[in-house]
């Protein structure tokens, strides 16, 4: 097993040195926040249980947040990790901030930097060495058509500012996000953690393979219509992802494009069975945001169908006279959890009776913000259930449904057990975090194509 901690330890010292070099150059009336995102990852893409591409990425990205003379400027850069070489470049960027501030109008919603405290969290992991990794992954999948992505290594988020704020979060984890194919039929799996374990990986594969075997039952021809529908945790996670795009944002509400505007203004309610909160105690991502502001450990957004609180960034708070809850500027949940319900997951086929079991959804988007309507596709292991038994897989269906209804009057219940769905996003840099969600049973879910 190998450790990536050398990168992490080096970066800790580097970040302290680089930030101190910048802070001591600040002039009267200037403040600076330095935000760091970094990773040392190995990415491996598989097709047909073979390697398509392998890519090592070592990257360190720094963002300077500058305030001076009532102006706000930020400058981001990728650095080498060698402080002697990088500090002159960072000082040049600090000067660029000053020059930009001279020509920009004053920022009426500037939130002055302050010391939001200190935190330090590091989690070490154990990953297979490179020369064994490819066999570790492919050997248990011999004979299977596997496609997917392995990502493993160190991920770091940190933040320091000129008032003394100092936050550090570093993890060494992996995920294997994959699907198994039998011709066009496919089943989805994710194996993730901090300690790679060959037995656990083989067991994870075996579970996905069992689901794939169910897909060999006769295909059911299901026409568009309204069906009692079970969304497994993987599908609920997709739904939550699109809901998070403006659905819980105070800024989106004030700017007129929040899909839950009617919920906010008391014109609509969701089901009393539906409760959603930010829960940083899951330990999936840091509580501090890119400004170093620290969110409460838990924050209830929707409780028993009623809106308790939107996510409010400090900038939105300043603009609209609201109270900030240390949300990120995007005001999307970072560690959301949907409360579990009372349906026994083992009895889910009986609970469905006759209807649809959907393991995953695909390519969701708002189709009508005002009615909180979302469209998307079914994907992977999705079945027609008849009288409490799986009849067979379905052809992909398109749904188009209002969340006021799906999470409101049509919501039958949620399963009593939840699953953590780890973040597997890797745009520019590997994401940290994840969601915790149960399964969800909905009546008369609308399918259109």
């Amino acid at each position: 097993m190998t450790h990536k901690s050398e990168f992490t330890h080096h970066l800790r010292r580097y970040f302290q040195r680089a930030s101190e070099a910048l802070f001591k150059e600040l002039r009267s009336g200037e403040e600076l926040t330095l935000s760091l995102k970094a990773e040392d990852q190995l990415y491996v893409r598989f097709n047909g249980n073979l390697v398509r591409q392998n890519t090592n990425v070592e990257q360190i990205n720094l963002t300077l947040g500058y305030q001076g003379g009532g102006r706000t400027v930020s400058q981001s850069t990728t650095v080498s990790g060698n402080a002697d070489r990088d500090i002159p470049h960072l000082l040049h960027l600090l000067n660029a901030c000053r020059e930009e501030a001279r020509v920009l109008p004053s920022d009426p919603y500037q939130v002055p930097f302050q010391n939001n405290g200190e935190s330090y969290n590091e989690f070490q992991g154990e990953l297979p060495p490179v020369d064994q990794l490819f066999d570790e992954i492919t050997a248990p999948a011999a004979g299977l058509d596997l496609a997917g992505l392995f990502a493993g290594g160190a991920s770091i988020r940190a933040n320091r500012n000129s008032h003394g704020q100092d936050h550090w979060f570093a993890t060494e984890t992996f995920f294997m996000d994959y699907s198994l194919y039998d011709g066009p039929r496919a089943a989805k799996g994710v194996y993730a953690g901090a300690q790679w374990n060959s037995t656990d990986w083989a067991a994870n594969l075996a579970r996905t393979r069992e689901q794939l075997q169910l897909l060999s039952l006769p295909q059911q021809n299901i026409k568009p219509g309204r069906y009692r529908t079970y969304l497994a945790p993987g599908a609920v996670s997709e739904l939550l992802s699109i809901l998070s795009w403006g659905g819980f944002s105070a800024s989106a509400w004030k700017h007129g494009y929040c899909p839950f505007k009617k919920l906010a203004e008391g014109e609509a309610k969701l089901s009393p069975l539906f409760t959603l909160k930010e829960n940083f105690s899951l330990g999936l991502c840091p509580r501090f945001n890119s400004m170093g502001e620290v969110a409460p450990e838990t924050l209830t957004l929707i409780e028993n169908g009623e809106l308790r609180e939107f996510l409010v960034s400090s900038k939105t708070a300043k603009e609209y006279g609201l109270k900030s809850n240390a949300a990120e500027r995007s005001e999307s949940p970072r560690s959301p959890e949907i409360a579990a319900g009372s349906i026994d997951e083992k009895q889910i086929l009986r609970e469905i009776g006759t209807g649809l079991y959907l393991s995953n959804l695909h390519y969701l988007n708002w189709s009508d913000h005002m009615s909180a309507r979302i469209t998307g596709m079914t994907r992977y292991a999705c079945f027609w259930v008849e009288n409490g038994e799986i009849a067979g897989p379905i052809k992909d269906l398109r749904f188009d449904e209002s969340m006021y209804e799906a999470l409101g009057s049509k919501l039958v219940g949620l399963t009593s057990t939840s699953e953590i769905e780890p973040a597997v996003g890797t745009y520019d840099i590997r994401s940290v975090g994840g969601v915790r969600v149960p399964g969800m049973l909905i009546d008369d879910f609308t399918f259109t194509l």
Partner: protein
Amino acid sequence: MIEVLIDGHFGYAGTADLSAEGLKRALDRAIEATRAASKKRVFRFTTEERPNARGEYRSIRQKNLDETSLAEITDCLMAASKAMSISDTIANRVASAMIIQTQTDFFSTSGAEIRQNFDLVNIDFAATAVRGSESQTRTYSKMGQWGGEVFEKDFFVAEAERTAKEALELIEAENCPEGKFDLLLYPDQMILQIHESIGHPLEIDRILGDERNYAGWSFVKPEDFGRLQYGSPLMNVTFDPTQPHEFASYAFDDSGNPATKEFLIKDGILLRGLGSLESQRRSQLLGVANYRSSSWNRAPIDRMANINLEPGALSLEELVSQMKRGVIMKTNRSWSIDDYRNKFQFGCEYGQWVEDGRIVKTVKNPNYRGITVDFWNRLVGVGNADLVETLGSPYCGKGEPNQVIRVGHSSPPCLFREVEVFGGHA
């Protein structure tokens, strides 16, 4: 980004440490992982997939972006934002500019030496009108490879004002009717239709299954090339990275392959896929120069560049006159399509209801849905060259690890017969 070829397998290591020591460390890591991975390689490649090319490319511009001051740009955007402030009903205004200058240098041990410099500009305006629980947003975009000449204050002020006026118009408008109607798509929706239902399904790495675990597979089969009637005979689609000012123009892809214009679909028949030299070798299909990385930290994959629908012969008046009962739709606002690129549903910001060849009224929340090949075979009218608009997207997502890259699309307005159309719900 360092690429190595070991035992027929390409592997990569990216670092921002460009010192000799940093590059050596990245090279060693690329070699270590690639040597181990080559025992499980998906295909045996050779240096033939890395042409020995030399050359340069630079975006065409009249004025260097470096010579356009931040003050000028800010002034232009502030003026546009102010121009949208035409009513208290406009609750939010956005004016933004994204300016990217990129230089790529490509060297290989096979002798390739390529330098490309890109000047990219993306300007967006948005006005949101709010009344009670109703809100409507109208947007404007201009994007492409430009210099500082693109910041024309008077032009942007006029476009910003129109954008806000149309947001107000939508607040007053009726919902788009539901039914099977003629559908006239303006270029700023056509680009999305082209992107999702032509560009992605023709990517050969999707057809080969590389993308199955992320964005998905494709309904297009290798045997469809040269045979499939993808759309009506009016449909002509090209891959063209040679267009001046289009967002994804370049001279070479990131394998060093020289870029040329190629027909993907001619007279409605599918001819060629979007596949790099690696995908062409694996699939034995005709491809293009489209092996592209989003940045230094990602390996190249098959990508769209500029995918354009070639103009036809009809004026706007002639297109509208062919509509018995139908809807004109402008500017994409919602998009979703399945993982095989068959069943889509798209929504637009602005609609107009047409009866007997005449525009009758504005309608809000216009949406339509369909299935790719069936939809393109409903194409009955293509606008002429004067009506072509060139746009694109800075945010095309694909790949594992994920990559977001710029793409360009141009199209005239196009008319489709008997499409399933619907509006918003109360």
